[in-house]
């Protein structure tokens, strides 16, 4: 996924560059309806997602309720 950098004006400051939205605009329709796995393209991204999104099974520094008590 590519990150968007956007310019925002902050009160009392010059324009600043900040990380833009990480969600997609609008609503998915037709072919794209419901498709989300295709958003992850590289192997690295997919592994990263497993470590975060499925953190209780594959994460190294995220611990589910049981792992805290009983390190796996």
């Amino acid at each position, binding site marked *: 996924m590519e990150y968007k950098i956007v310019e925002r004006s902050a009160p009392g400051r010059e324009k600043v560059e900040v990380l833009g939205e990480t969600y997609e605009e609008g609503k998915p329709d037709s072919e794209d309806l419901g498709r989300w796995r295709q958003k992850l393209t590289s192997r690295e991204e997919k592994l990263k997602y497993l470590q975060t999104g499925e953190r209780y099974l594959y994460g190294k520094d995220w611990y589910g309720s049981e792992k805290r008590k*009983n390190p796996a």
Partner: protein
Amino acid sequence: MVEKENKSIDQATNEMIEKAASDGCSVVFDRAESMKPCPIGSVGSCCQNCSMGPCRVPLTKGKEETPEAKKKRRGVCGATAETIAARYFARMVASGTAAHSDHARKVTETFLAVARGEAPGYQIKDEQKLLQLALDLGVEISERSNEEIAIDIGEIAMKEFGRQEGEILFLKRAPLKRQELWRKQGVTPRGIDREVVEIMHRTHMGVDQEYKSLLKQAVRTSLADGWGGSMIATELQDVMFGTPAPVLGRINLGILREDEVNLIIHGHEPQLAEMLAVVAQDPQIVEYAISKGAKGINLAGMCCTANEILMRHGIPLAGNFLQQELAIVTGVLDAIVVDVQCIMQGLADVAQCYHTKVITTDSRARIEGAMHIEFDEHNAAEIARDIIRTAIDNFPNRSGSIRVPKQETDLIAGFSHETINYLMGGLFRASYRPLNDNIINGRIRGVAGVVGCNNARVTHDSAHVAMVKELIKNDVLVLQTGCSAMACAKAGLMVPEAAAEYAGEGLASVCEAIGIPPVLHLGSCVDNARILVAATMMVKDGGLGDDVSDLPVAGAAPEWMSEKAISIGQYFVGSGIFTVFGVNWPTLGSKGVTDFLFKDFEEMYGGMWAFEADPIKAAQLMIEHIDKKRKALGIDKARDRILYDMEARRELDAA
């Protein structure tokens, strides 16, 4: 005048039953009228395990059994009513496990052929799922190709069937406490085939004659199904064909088209169906259909093969189990292609009344009178083309009696565990947290898995729909698979709008916020493994106890009929889930066995069976159980969190 009793709550089904009668064609509903179930066999009081029998040991009706009478209820070999009922039940579990697991073995063979480049036309579609399995099974990833990784995964999966010792590998996914409990109870499966074989051995004449011991092996075997065979099938299918994500589909006999070549694929294994889905779009084959006078090719599914291709391609569902013969009765079905499981032999007879070709494709599932085109994954596209051409060639043979019902309903399918996790948090915060939070705050009361078949002894679809409506009205989120999912889809419960119409206020508010229906379609019957994973993730996310048996969840199969359903129910129970079955109960002939399954199991496994034929009462039992679990968790009086505004905060500070 007495009003004629409808066989189904579905209008399309009733219309086709009437048409069959006027066409002089007998279907399952007629056969069920003339063939009543045997009252002794149906409650597990008939043993046929040796040629000194069959021995029938019926309970005396309407009377409390005296110890003397109980003593007399024995087979020739001395087997008690308990042993006979437990053996019957255990064999059902073995058969169900064998069915799911042999499906999984076939999928694993295809998977290995794909990985080795020996199955042209198939591919590894879902790299992410492949990587997930590699992590699960300890397969090296590094810079290796997907195919290299897949070969290792396929070989490890294949060994699970013939494993002789240790523990099957996917058990590691279960909550830690559950794994400990299985070890303590001695029900951790060693290998899939081994547990099935052991049941067949133990239930042979003169082997295990202690009902508790037999039922313990039934639990062990069922776990080899849910956390073994079924899970392997689901996971490898996901890698080859894609992990399901929400997709819009349509269901019911109304999806058949008078002006197109109609081809239904029916059964359970998706390998051929996947290829049919691809080949049916080939311009050359479409052109061939047009050359025969059709406007195109209409591929549809039935039963669980249908669920598989619906979830991945949006291919319409013609209906569930009891509608298979009725699709032929429309007169527009040019071919029904079958793979394995839940295929009625009656199809061949019904097809005689019309022009439909019944095509068997698996050497394990032949039907007398049907055409056979053997499927082989090494040459899948060619075989799929051959099958579709056979259907097209049959299009001009349609005879006069044609009527396609109008009913077809929209549904959203494809809620895999992965997708549910993603939907509740997006790519960066995927999580079960919102579900757990909403259970804790009481908007969602609990979660129910309502699954299983149709049964000609029950008004078609009625129990599924009544039960699920009752559950969602009481704020219970429902997860579904198999023919049960199809029943509720036909009733319009699987679209997001159903939340406002049928769900309780709390559940509806959550569904509206996430944009999901109150009843989620998780796939086919092997995909009940997805429900086990979802329950495990609820445990791991925290706040709802340490084990599946702590969760406010329940399971049900209100119209079950197959042995696979018993195996599924048993692994739900063995995994800690209270599970209610409808229709009848196969051990009612023995109070000892029934009490053990319904009561003692709770003590041993945290989950237990129940039987209740009335779907509303069954739903109430599930809700009672959910409330009991909520109470134990201390969330029975949970209320919405109060959000303080600044003024309220100041008041608090001042106080």
